[in-house]
């Protein structure tokens, strides 16, 4: 049940975003894609989520040909930098969305959905905020709701695109610790995009340092820090 990304390329109208990115993430691991802006990390994440399409290369997850599946059937929870909560829905309705849109046969009962929403709100430490609208929440609270919403569908993969980028340092640290706790609790393979190396090293099992649409180095935080393989990696880490 591991995730295998093999030489994925993607070209936008004028510039190449990915030039053959490859890595393997074991089942249940927490991988950080780390790199400066324009290194292709968000594009790679969006390809994993089905929001962007690769020009070539392949992605296998368990025994699935991942790139042939539409976003809708991948069952991969996605957390966006700008939260992307449904503005016109309450917190509870946001979290329940993924369960309510399931086809009738797989849709849980109303009572089950309500119970699941309560559990998730407790998990992300926002009990009692069910009836609030996103506009009534702080940035940190919104991102917790977005995380709960992504977890509600019992995802087989969790994808996070700079989820803490818009938050202040203190909130970032709290959320980072909570994210790791939630990941360990759910045991779901997680890919996390960030440009903040401290964040990447603190939270991930494996770090992929990216540059110009390629993965420069891939390994455990300790390994990457101790043995930077290219001048770019050592320079990026010392910045």
């Amino acid at each position: 049940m591991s995730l295998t990304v093999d030489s994925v390329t993607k070209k936008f109208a004028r510039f190449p975003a990915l030039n053959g990115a490859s890595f393997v993430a074991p089942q249940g691991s927490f991988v950080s894609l780390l790199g400066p802006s324009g290194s292709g990390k968000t594009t790679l994440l969006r390809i994993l989520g089905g929001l962007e399409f690769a020009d070539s290369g392949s992605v296998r997850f368990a025994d699935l040909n991942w790139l042939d599946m539409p976003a809708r059937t991948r069952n991969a929870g996605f957390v966006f930098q700008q939260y992307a909560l449904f503005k016109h829905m309450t917190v509870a309705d946001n979290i329940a969305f993924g369960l309510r849109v399931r086809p009738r046969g797989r849709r849980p009962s109303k009572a089950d959905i309500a119970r699941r929403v309560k559990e998730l709100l407790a998990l992300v430490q926002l009990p009692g905020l069910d009836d609030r609208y996103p506009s009534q929440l702080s940035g940190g609270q919104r991102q917790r709701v977005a995380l709960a919403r992504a977890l509600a569908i019992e995802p087989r993969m969790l994808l996070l695109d700079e989820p803490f980028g818009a938050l202040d340092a203190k909130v970032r640290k709290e959320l980072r610790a909570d994210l790791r706790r939630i990941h360990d609790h759910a045991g779901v393979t997680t890919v996390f995009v960030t440009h903040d190396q401290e964040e990447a090293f603190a939270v991930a099992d494996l770090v992929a340092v990216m540059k110009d649409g390629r993965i420069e180095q891939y390994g455990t935080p300790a390994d990457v820090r101790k043995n930077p393989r290219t001048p770019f990696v050592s320079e990026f880490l010392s910045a």
Partner: protein
Amino acid sequence: MSKRFLNPTEDPLWLRLLLGAVAVGFIAVLLLLPLALVFKEAFANGVSAFWTAIVEPDALAAVKLSLIAAAIAVPFNTVFGIAAAWAVAKYDFPGKTVLVTLIDLPFSVSPVVAGLIYVLVFGMQGWFGPWLIDHDIHILFAVPGIVLATIFVTFPFVARELIPLMVDQGRDEEEAAATLGATGLQTFLRVTLPNIKWGLLYGILLCNARALGEFGAVSVVSGHIRGVTNTMPLHVQLLYDNYDYAGAFAVAALLAMLALLTLVLKSLLEWRYADELAASHRH
């Protein structure tokens, strides 16, 4: 008592009063006064005279035709407007700017020219004229022509209202819905539509008001057959040209009332859903 400083964004009292008076004055003279005069003239001979002028068969036929034209044009342009705004806001494709410019065309082209275009296409000497006559299909000087002209002039209202709104809202929520397993239709009904419903409603109301009030384009294609191809605005002109001022003003008042009803409806909905409206504007 400490000296009171002006708030940096606050202007002196005399200037505020002057600007306020100018605005109110313009509205009173240019908008309210003519409207009041229409109603005064309409009811000059009493309510029963007004009523007689309205239930007169030709007037009723005109009301009916206007409502038919609006009832076809508004749903058509609503569906088109949503489709166009959706395409422009959520997808990138070549020729997008051309499409947006084309949608604006009916705003920039004079309605009379729009009417003439239909004469050129469907008229006796037009492209399809002879073929239409051979098959006994009547478009010009008949209801289909009036509906087509109405659709043309009211084409941009819904699309114009929705495009900036949907571009501004971006694709984030739709992308989130897709990753959560929603189908395209579920995403549209549960995410996109609730987010645009106020803009959509406003566009539909404007489209409806214009559809009922359109004069120029409809005038060219109508042929002014009394009781058959006259819409309300055309009927007003016909009565006025025949020195039937009481009748003209009665129908004009009815037309104005329909427009006012539209505005009242809009205000009522805004008042009823004020909380929701405020919530959807904040981020």
